[in-house]
């Protein structure tokens, strides 16, 4: 299985990209471990997580093809 991961705002700068793909991650918590391995500074940022464009809280199971986004506080307007 593979999920698409989107990085927005300052997190795209931290990740050096706005999109990556991760395989073999069964849940958002496990995905976060992989991301913090790749980008240790991630832990310093405040963000929300969405799965398939819905905000999620806590650990959420991921399926093949899911779209996960890491989003700093919104700043529209």
């Amino acid at each position, binding site marked *: 299985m593979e999920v698409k991961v989107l990085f927005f705002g300052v997190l795209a*700068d931290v990740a050096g990209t706005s999109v990556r793909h991760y395989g073999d991650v069964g849940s958002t918590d496990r995905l976060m471990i992989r991301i913090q391995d790749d980008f240790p500074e991630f832990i310093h940022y405040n963000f929300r997580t969405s799965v398939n*464009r819905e905000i999620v809280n806590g650990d959420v199971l991921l399926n093949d093809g899911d779209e996960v*986004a890491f*989003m700093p506080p919104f700043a*529209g*307007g």
Partner: protein
Amino acid sequence: MAEYLVEGPIDNELMTRLLAPPAGNFDAGATSVFIGRVRADENGGKKVVAIEYSAYDEMVNSEATKIIDQILAGFNNVKSISLIHSRGRVGAGEISLFVMVSAGHRRQAIEACSEAVELIKARLPVWKNEVYDDNSHEWKQNLPL
């Protein structure tokens, strides 16, 4: 691009089009509009010359639809709602947000527009990178109300 996003500033032509009443439908006596512009703020001696907005296009679309549905459900006198946000670069003094609510009477138009603006600020997945007059830039967050 999401249907609620426009590339660059919201210009007069687009605003004029949005402000036109629906042809032949004249039951909305009150229209409340909110316009957000990029302020030429100072930040540590540097002046904001523009904001570069980025957005999660598909989620802007779904959240904007939810916001509109929520307003329509909460205000029975509201006839129509428009909302447009900029993506990309918007210069100081230019418009990045346009929200318009039409209703039969003024109370619901004004209150629903105000509530829509709060929901947009809270829920629309948009981010802003302030660009300064020395070409440096900085990601900013909205301040709490």
